[in-house]
C-alpha cells in the first residue's frame, strides 16, 4: 500500500497529473479573464515533453553539478512535502508536527531558486536570485504566522488533527478569514506568481534565476514550481477549508477537488487583477501590513481558545 501511496495516489503520479491540470486551468482562467481563449488542455504536457527533449546548454562559468542538482533538490523537497499533505484525507504518512516539516520543505524551493541564480553566472540570474531572497523574507513571515492560526486553534501541529478539528467545528477560513487571506497572499509570494512575480519578472530581469537554464533542467524547474502550486493549494485547503460537518454526507474527493479549484481560482484572479509590485513595495507591505495583521489574527485565535 505504501508504494502505491508514494508513487500513484496521492504521491508522484497524482501530483504530476494535478500539476499539469492546475497549470492548464490557471492559464485558461487568466486567458478567459483577459478576453482570450487560452491554451488547449494538453498544453502543459506538451511544454514539459518538449523541454525534456531540448538541448541542454550550460553557460560558461556556471557550476555544472550544482545547476543539475538544484532543480532536483527543489522537486524532491516539494515531493517530500507532498507526502504529509493529505489529499481528501489520505496521506502517505503523518506524524505529530508534520505541518512544521511541510513548511520547512516548502521553503526549500525558494532557497534553491536563489542558488540557481547564483550558480548560473548571468547578470539577470543573480539579480533575480537576490530578489527571490528578498521576497522570501517579505512573504514567509506572514505566511508562517497565518498558517500557525489553525494549528493554534486546533491545538495540534499535525495536519490530520487540524482537519479533524475543523471537521467537528467549522472551516478555518470562516473563523479566521484574515489568516486565510494572508495565507493566500503568502502563497502567491511563495509561488512567485503575478502580482508577486518580482524575481522572474520578464520585463525587468528577463527570466530571473532561470534565464540561463534550458532543456531538461528548465522542465524540472517548471515541474517543481507547478507541483509547489499544487501542494501549496492542498495545504491551504487542508488548513483552512478542511472537512466540514455540513458536507459529511458527500464523498470526500470531489469536495476536496472543488475546494482546491476554488483556491486556484483565487490565485488566478489575483494575478489578473493587479500589477506587479516593486520589491520595496512588497517589503513595506510585508512588514507594515501582512505581518502585523497575521499576528493580530493569531492573537484573535488565542483569545478564541480562551
Amino acid at each position, binding site marked *: 500500500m505504501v508504494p502505491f501511496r508514494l508513487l500513484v495516489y496521492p504521491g508522484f503520479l497524482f501530483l504530476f497529473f494535478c500539476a499539469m491540470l492546475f497549470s492548464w486551468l490557471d492559464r485558461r482562467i487568466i486567458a478567459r479573464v*483577459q478576453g482570450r481563449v487560452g491554451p488547449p488542455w494538453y498544453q502543459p504536457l506538451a511544454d514539459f515533453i518538449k523541454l525534456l527533449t531540448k538541448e541542454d546548454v550550460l553557460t560558461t562559468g556556471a557550476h555544472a553539478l550544482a545547476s543539475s542538482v538544484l532543480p532536483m533538490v527543489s522537486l524532491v523537497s516539494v515531493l517530500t512535502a507532498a507526502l504529509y499533505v493529505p489529499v481528501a484525507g489520505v496521506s502517505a504518512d503523518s506524524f505529530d508536527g508534520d505541518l512544521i516539516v511541510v513548511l520547512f520543505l516548502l521553503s526549500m524551493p525558494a532557497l534553491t531558486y536563489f542558488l540557481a541564480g547564483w550558480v548560473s553566472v548571468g*547578470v539577470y540570474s*543573480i*539579480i533575480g536570485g537576490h530578489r527571490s531572497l528578498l521576497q522570501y523574507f517579505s512573504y514567509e513571515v506572514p505566511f508562517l504566522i497565518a498558517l500557525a492560526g489553525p494549528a493554534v486553534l486546533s491545538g495540534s501541529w499535525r495536519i490530520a488533527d487540524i482537519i479533524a478539528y475543523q471537521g467537528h467545528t467549522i472551516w478555518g477560513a470562516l473563523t479566521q478569514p484574515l489568516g486565510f487571506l494572508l495565507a493566500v497572499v503568502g502563497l502567491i509570494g511563495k509561488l512567485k506568481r503575478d502580482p508577486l512575480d518580482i524575481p522572474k519578472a520578464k520585463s525587468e530581469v528577463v527570466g530571473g534565476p532561470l534565464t540561463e537554464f534550458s532543456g531538461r533542467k528548465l522542465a524540472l524547474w517548471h515541474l517543481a514550481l507547478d507541483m509547489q502550486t499544487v501542494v501549496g493549494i492542498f495545504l491551504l485547503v487542508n488548513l483552512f477549508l478542511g472537512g466540514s460537518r455540513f458536507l459529511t454526507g458527500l464523498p470526500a474527493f470531489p469536495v476536496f477537488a472543488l475546494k482546491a479549484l476554488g483556491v486556484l481560482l483565487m490565485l488566478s484572479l489575483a494575478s489578473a487583477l*493587479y*500589477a*506587479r*509590485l516593486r520589491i520595496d513595495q512588497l517589503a513595506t507591505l510585508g512588514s507594515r501590513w501582512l505581518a502585523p495583521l497575521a499576528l493580530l489574527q493569531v492573537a484573535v485565535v488565542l483569545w478564541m481558545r480562551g
Partner: protein
Amino acid sequence: MTKTTVPIGPQHPLLKEPMSFQLGLEGERVAESAMRIGYVHRGIERLCQERSYVQNIYLLERVCGICSHVHATTYSRAVEALMGVEVPPRGVYLRALMCEFERIHSHLLWLGVIARNIGFDTIFNYAWRDREIVLDIMEDLSGGRVSHAANTLGGSRFDLTDEHRDKILEQLQIMDAQIQLLLGAVEHERTLRERTRGIGKLTLEQIHRYCVVGPVARASGLDIDLRRDRHEAPYDRLEFAVPVHTDGDVWARTLVRVQEAVESVSLCRQILNSLPEGPVTTRVPRRVPAGEAISRSEAPRGEVIYYVRSDGSDKPARVKVRTPTLTALVTLSEQLADVQMADVSVVLSGVDLCIACADR
C-alpha cells in the same frame, strides 16, 4: 557597495526594438546609465535621395510602423508645398481623420505596452483588444492595418461614402465606451498608480532644456500641441481639449495619453460629421521645382518635422526627418538616475520610445 553592470537590450523583453542600455546598479538602485542607439538605423534619409518622390511616400511610411501615416502626411505636405499644390479640403480632412485614428491606435498600444511592462497583462489585453476596433476602421478605409498607404502627393488615396461614415460612427461609439473604461482603470486602479507615480519625473525646466515635445512635455505642464497652435485646417474648425498635467511622472503621461485618445475619438467624430464635399486629390506635376520646404505635424509622440530640398529632378536632393522620440531619448539618462531596477521598465516605456523613428 559593489556595482553590477546590467545590460538592457538590444534584445530584451521590455523593448520591442533593439536599443541598448548599460545600467550600473548599486543593489537595486540605478547609479549610472549609458545608452547606445543605432541598431535600427537603416539609412532612410540616404535612401530617400535615391528614390523618386512617389516612392518616398511608402519608404517614409516605414520610418515607423506605429505612426506611419503621420510621417507620410508630413512628407507629402512638404513636397506639395514645394510644388505649390493645394490639397482639396476633403483630402485634408481625410488625412487628419487617419492621423486621429492613428493617435488612438498608438496611445492604446502604448498603454498596453506599459501595462505589460509592469506585469498588468489584463490591461494589456484589454487595451489591445479595443485597439482592434480602430485597426478595423483603418483597414476598412485604407486597406492596411498598420501601414495605410493612405497618402498620395496631392491628397488622400481613400474616400468614404455616407454608409461607410455611419458604420464608422457606430464603431466609434463602442470605442468611446471602451476607452472610458481604460481611462477609469488608469485613474483608479491602485497597483497601476503605485507603480507609475513619481517615477521618471521631468520638471518643466528640464523639458525646456531638452526641448521635449509631445505627451511627455504635456505631462510636465508644457501646453503645446501643434494641432491647436498652428491654426490650420481642419483643426481650426474643430473643438478639442489638449490635456495637460503638471506632475511630470509616468502616471501623468499615462493620463495625458489616454485622455488624448478620448479627445481623438471626439475629433474623429467631428471630422466625419463635417466632412466637406469635393474631390480628395488634385493632380500634381511629375517634376518638383527646385527649392526647399519644411513641414510639421503633431504625431502621437510629439512634433515631427520634415525638411525636403529639391534640385528640380524627380528625386529629392535631401530629406531630413526630425522625430519626437529623439528629444525624449536624451532625457532618459536623467530620468533613470536613482530609480530602482524594477522601475527601469516603467521609465523606458513611459516616454513611449520609438527607436525606429529615432534611428531611421
